[in-house]
């Protein structure tokens, strides 16, 4: 069963007379519970696609359906609510809020949800446990290593129990060891918690964790590869 369906999805920027097409009539289906790696040369439209899937950007034309919901029909506020419920986004540079502790960073998305503070505490602690940062609750981002920061960021992305976990080069800024830890974490979240993961990566080794490889070039899908796992 597919969670995501893109039909003739295009994102076009007009810069004066010039027309830039980071995504060009893309057709794509991603199954629920899948782990997809998006690959392709720089400028091929990977981040653009991820941003559309996250509902932080809007397609110029085409259809984007996620979980049966057509994102193009949602207002800005509805889209924000939808993100808060359905999407966890992991950034290459973590993007933790520097004035908040690890615990508070993870708590931040949950503050948008109507749950009791006890339930919130339970879920934040659980998320930090899952990513293995339980002993760093009161540390600020500047007091954490890059790998630890990324794991806090992943905890923040999963604490709302989103359907869709998106990651843009999540290991791009990490050393091999931290990268492996982060990838194993994402893989576990996919296998054990059933989260659908769509991840952008440049690195073939990182892509090994996925079960589907998508190759983009110039805004088009040029190859789709099922991985044997």
């Amino acid at each position, binding site marked *: 069963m597919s969670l995501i369906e893109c039909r003739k999805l295009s994102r076009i920027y007009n810069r004066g007379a010039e027309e830039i097409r980071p995504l060009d009539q893309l057709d794509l289906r991603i199954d629920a519970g899948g782990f997809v790696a998006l690959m392709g040369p720089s400028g091929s439209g990977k981040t653009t696609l991820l941003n559309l899937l996250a509902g*932080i950007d809007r397609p110029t034309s085409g259809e984007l359906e996620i979980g049966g919901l057509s994102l193009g029909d949602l207002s800005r506020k509805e889209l924000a609510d*939808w993100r808060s419920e359905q999407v966890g986004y992991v950034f290459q540079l973590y993007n933790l809020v520097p004035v908040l502790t690890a615990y508070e960073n993870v708590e931040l998305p949950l503050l948008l949800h109507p749950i009791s503070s006890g339930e919130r505490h339970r879920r934040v602690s659980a998320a930090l446990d899952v990513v293995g940062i339980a002993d760093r609750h009161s540390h600020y981002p500047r007091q954490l290593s890059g790998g630890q920061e990324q794991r806090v960021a992943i905890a923040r992305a999963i604490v709302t129990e989103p359907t869709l976990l998106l990651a843009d080069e999540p290991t791009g800024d990490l050393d091999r060891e931290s990268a492996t830890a982060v990838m194993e974490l994402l893989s576990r979240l996919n296998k054990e918690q059933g989260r659908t993961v769509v991840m952008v990566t440049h690195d073939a080794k990182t892509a090994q964790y996925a079960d589907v490889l998508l190759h983009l070039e110039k805004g088009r899908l040029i190859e789709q590869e099922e991985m044997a796992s």
Partner: protein
Amino acid sequence: MAGLTSRNLAMFQGGVNMRLLPLSYATRNLGRTPSRMVLTIGGSMLVVLLVLAAGGFVTGMRKALVASGNENNTILLGVGSEESLERSEISMQAAGILAASLDGILNRAGVEGISPEIHLAMPVSLDESTDALGEGELMLVRGITHNAWIVHDEATLLTGRVGEAGRDEAVLGKLAARSLGFEPAENAIDRSIWIDGREIRVVGILTADSGVIEGEIWYPLTDLQVLSQRDAVSCVIVTRDGATPPQIAAFASRRLDLELAAIEEVDYFASLSAFYAPIRTMVLLTALLVGIGAIIGGLNSNYATFVSRIREMGTLQTLGYSRFAITISLLQESILASAVGALLACFIAIFILDGTAIRFSMGVFGLHIDTGVLAGGLLAGFLLGIAGALLPAWRCLTRPIPEALKTTI
């Protein structure tokens, strides 16, 4: 995913996104760059202090002039000098003739509410040598009889006693004492002041409900006549008790020989107040212009601060926070800083500015920091916080999220 549809439903019913960021996010952001925080707080403190000073000036002046007009008093002064008591000269006999010709004048324990007075601006010094050089401070010296205390019933002795004629004794208004450097005013008791080569002892301090009298020196009329070598008085002030203003005006026009004009004390001070209105307007305008300048400065510094957080704003929006929620947080941060500055300014205003003697051509009056002025200052601080942050916040938040996420400082 099975749960998706029901969760979507809950989402659209809940309207979860009206939720705001925690206040601690705003307070910690404020403390993110301590130097900026100190500058912001200090800046808003100075601006609010200026607003308070301007408000205190205007209120103090207006209050002094309003408090000085007694609605039962009529001033008789020289025809042609209706604008200024200090320029008026009338015969000393006017008081006696008036008492004999008119009924309905206040009489308290045998003392009539008819007060012949001289109003003179004279240089006043605290030591002989300054006086000899003629470098004293110009202050209003009012030559009075005991009747003055009846006519100006707002004038009361704070301490000491009234001066006796022929003994070089004077009573100082509270503000006059303070503007001469006595703090508190009571310290002036038994000290000497010099006026025109004459040493005069301070025997009393008076208050007058913040009226102009508080900035004056009350000296016995006959002594002042000797000192200033004049027989004529400046005016006669009458407290009516039954008599009407037209009756007194009729008396003034009937006695052509005395060359009198009658003017209600309230009207006299009202026109004085109107005369100084442009100055009050200018003071307020200056404060307004400085305030606007401060808002523009605030816009700049807030913009610089917020721009450096654009990526963070993109992240918060990705998490599901609305632009509205983020704007509120930025406003909280800005208002917090300006409110702290405004409160500091209010403390300074209450403990230092309030009552400060301002010497002015109309006399001395005190800066008056009342609740209205304080409310105005706090409001100015609040507006400073909002106006300085709203536009920069909006400019930073309207960037598309993907673009915001790409921003590197």
